[in-house]
C-alpha cells in the first residue's frame, strides 16, 4: 500500500519502473496527442503512460496521458508490484474498499495556490486543451475531479461529491458538464435549482492517481470519495478548502473554481464515449469559472476515450467490479469474484459456489438489482467457483460445456439501461440476459457430467521451473 502525494510523485515512480514514456520530438495538439494515446492501448496491456513536453506553438505546455492505462500502471497506483496479476489486483482492491471510511487530513495551503488568475480568465490560453476524436464538439477536460457540496446539507462532508464528469470548454470561462440523472452532482444541482441558487464547484485537474479512480467509482450518495481514497491508500487523504468551502486534493496541478448556473442548459457534445460511439448532442448544464489556480509548470492530464480498450477501460475496471462484488457478496456470500471489466460492465462475469440447482440464476438476477445492474449490466455470465472470471479462456470453456441454451439462458424484458448504451430500445431501456454457465447440481439433473479433468501431479512445480528456463533461454 502506498500514498502518492501528487501526480508528480506518481510519474516519478512510473519513470523508475520504466512505465513512463517521454515524447521529446515536437508534436501537434491535433491529431498527435490523441493518436499517440490511442495507439498505445493497441500495443498491449503493459504499455507505459506518455508525456508530451514539446507541443507546437507552446513554450512550456506539458500533457500526460494513459497514466492508468495498463495493468502494471494500475498495480502501481495501488502500490502493488507491477507484475501483480489481475485477479490479485481485484482482491486487494476489494479488501481496501471494505475498509471505508478512512480520514481526511485538512491543511491550510497547497502547491496549486502558487499561481492565481481571477481576471479575464481564458481557459484556452491557460490550459493546453485539444481535440480527442474528430467528431467531438470541441476540446474537453475529461479526467478532472469535479467537487461539489449539497446546498441542502452544506456542512455534511459525507455528501460532498468528487466525480469525473466530462467537461467541454465552450468559451473562455464557460464549460458544459455532463450530469446524467444517476450522478450525485445531478442531485446537488437539483437541490440548488430548487433554491434558485447556482451550485459552487471546484474542478481539480492532474491529481495523484487514487482519487481519480475513486471519482470513477459509483459510491453511495453519502460516501465521500476522499474517505474511500484514504482507505485505499492506507493514509488520511490530504485536502485544502477553497474559499467557498469545497475540499480539493492537496496535490492537484490546476484548480478551477466556479458555479453551475441554475436553470441553464446549453448545447454540449457530441463526445466519443465509453461504449465506443459518439454521444449525441444535448442541452446540458453550464459552468462559469471565476478563478483558476495552478502549480508552477503545471502538468495537464487527459484520458483518450475511444473504441475499447482504452485507458478509460482501466479506470472503470476494478472501480466497477469491486462495488458490484461487495454488494452481491452481502446477499450471496457464495460469490467468489466479479469481473465487470468490459465496456464499463455492460457485461458482468460472476464466479460463485452453488448451493443447489437454480442458485446461479438467482445470483445473476442479484447482479441486475445492484445499483450498477440498474444502469449498466446487460449480460450476466455466471460461472462456477473453479473458473477465474478474469480468464476469458476459462469463461468461454465454462459457457461451452456447462451451459445449455435450452435451460440456462434467461431474458428479462424492458429493464432500465444506461442512456449511452446505443442498443437501448428506447434509449435507456433494454432486455437483459443471464447465462448460467455453472454445472447443474441437484435437484437440477440436466446434462451428463462425468468427472471433470484436473492437471497431472507436479504441474505447478513444472510451471514455475519452465517459466524460469524460458526466461533464461530468451536472455
Amino acid at each position, binding site marked *: 500500500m502506498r500514498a502518492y502525494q501528487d501526480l508528480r510523485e506518481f510519474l516519478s515512480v512510473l519513470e523508475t519502473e520504466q512505465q513512463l514514456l517521454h515524447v521529446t520530438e515536437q508534436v501537434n495538439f*491535433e*491529431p498527435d496527442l490523441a493518436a499517440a494515446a490511442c495507439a498505445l492501448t493497441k500495443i498491449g496491456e503493459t504499455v507505459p503512460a506518455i508525456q508530451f513536453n514539446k507541443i507546437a*506553438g507552446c513554450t512550456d505546455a506539458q500533457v500526460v496521458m494513459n497514466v492508468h492505462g495498463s495493468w502494471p500502471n494500475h498495480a502501481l497506483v495501488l502500490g502493488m508490484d507491477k507484475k501483480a496479476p489481475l485477479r490479485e489486483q481485484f482482491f486487494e482492491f476489494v479488501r481496501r474498499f471494505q475498509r471505508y471510511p478512512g480520514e481526511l487530513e485538512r491543511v491550510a495551503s497547497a502547491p496549486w495556490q502558487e499561481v492565481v488568475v481571477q481576471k479575464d480568465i481564458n481557459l*484556452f490560453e491557460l490550459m493546453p486543451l*485539444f481535440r480527442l476524436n474528430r*467528431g467531438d464538439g*470541441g476540446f474537453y477536460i475529461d479526467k478532472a475531479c469535479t467537487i461539489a457540496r449539497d446546498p441542502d446539507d452544506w456542512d455534511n462532508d459525507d455528501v460532498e461529491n468528487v466525480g469525473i464528469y466530462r467537461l467541454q470548454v465552450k468559451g*473562455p470561462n464557460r464549460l458544459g458538464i455532463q450530469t446524467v440523472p444517476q450522478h450525485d452532482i445531478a442531485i446537488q444541482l437539483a437541490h440548488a435549482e430548487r433554491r434558485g441558487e447556482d451550485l459552487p464547484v471546484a474542478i481539480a485537474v492532474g491529481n495523484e492517481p487514487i482519487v481519480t479512480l475513486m471519482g470513477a467509482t459509483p459510491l453511495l450518495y453519502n460516501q465521500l470519495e476522499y474517505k474511500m481514497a484514504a482507505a485505499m491508500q492506507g493514509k488520511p487523504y490530504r485536502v485544502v478548502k477553497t474559499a467557498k468551502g469545497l475540499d480539493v486534493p492537496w496535490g492537484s496541478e490546476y484548480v478551477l473554481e466556479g458555479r453551475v448556473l441554475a436553470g441553464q442548459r446549453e448545447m454540449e457534445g457530441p463526445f466519443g464515449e465509453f461504449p465506443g460511439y459518439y454521444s449525441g448532442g444535448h442541452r*446540458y448544464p453550464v459552468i462559469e469559472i471565476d478563478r483558476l489556480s495552478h502549480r508552477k509548470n503545471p502538468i495537464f492530464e487527459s484520458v483518450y476515450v475511444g473504441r475499447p480498450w482504452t485507458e478509460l477501460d482501466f479506470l472503470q475496471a476494478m472501480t466497477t467490479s469491486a462495488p458490484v462484488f461487495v454488494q452481491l457478496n452481502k446477499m450471496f456470500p457464495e460469490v467468489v469474484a466479479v469481473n465487470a471489466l468490459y465496456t464499463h460492465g455492460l457485461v458482468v462475469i460472476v464466479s460463485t459456489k452453488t448451493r443447489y440447482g437454480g442458485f446461479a440464476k438467482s445470483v445473476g438476477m442479484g447482479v441486475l438489482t445492484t445499483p450498477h445492474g440498474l444502469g449498466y449490466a446487460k449480460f450476466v455470465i455466471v460461472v462456477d467457483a473453479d473458473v477465474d472470471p478474469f480468464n476469458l479462456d476459462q469463461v468461454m470453456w465454462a459457457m461451452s460445456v456447462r451451459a445449455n441454451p435450452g435451460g440456462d439462458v434467461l431474458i428479462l424484458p424492458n429493464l432500465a439501461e444506461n442512456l449511452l448504451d446505443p442498443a437501448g430500445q428506447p434509449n435507456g431501456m433494454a432486455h437483459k440476459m443471464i447465462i448460467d454457465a455453472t454445472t447443474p447440481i441437484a435437484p437440477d439433473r440436466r446434462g451428463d457430467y462425468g468427472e471433470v479433468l484436473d492437471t497431472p501431479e507436479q504441474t505447478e512445480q513444472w510451471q514455475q521451473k519452465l517459466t524460469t528456463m524460458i526466461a533464461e533461454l530468451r536472455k
Partner: protein
Amino acid sequence: MTNPSVIICPRCRSNIASIRATSPISGVWTVFGCNTCFYTWRSTEPEENRDPEKYLQVFRLNPADLANLPIVPTIQAKR
C-alpha cells in the same frame, strides 16, 4: 465575395464564431469557437475539422435544431 474577417463555423455554418486564443509562440495556431453551437477548432487541425466545406456531413448541425435537443437533467422549478 467572401469576407475574410468573417469566421464561419465548420459545423453549423453560423458566422458568429470568434477567436478564442492564439499560440504562445506567435503565428503557429489560432483557436476559434462558435458562439452558436460552441464548436471549437484549431487552425492547424486536419481539414475536416476546420474547413466548412470538408466538415463531415454526419457531424453537421443546423442552428435551428439546437433548441429542440433534449434537456438533461430536467431543470427543477424554484420552490
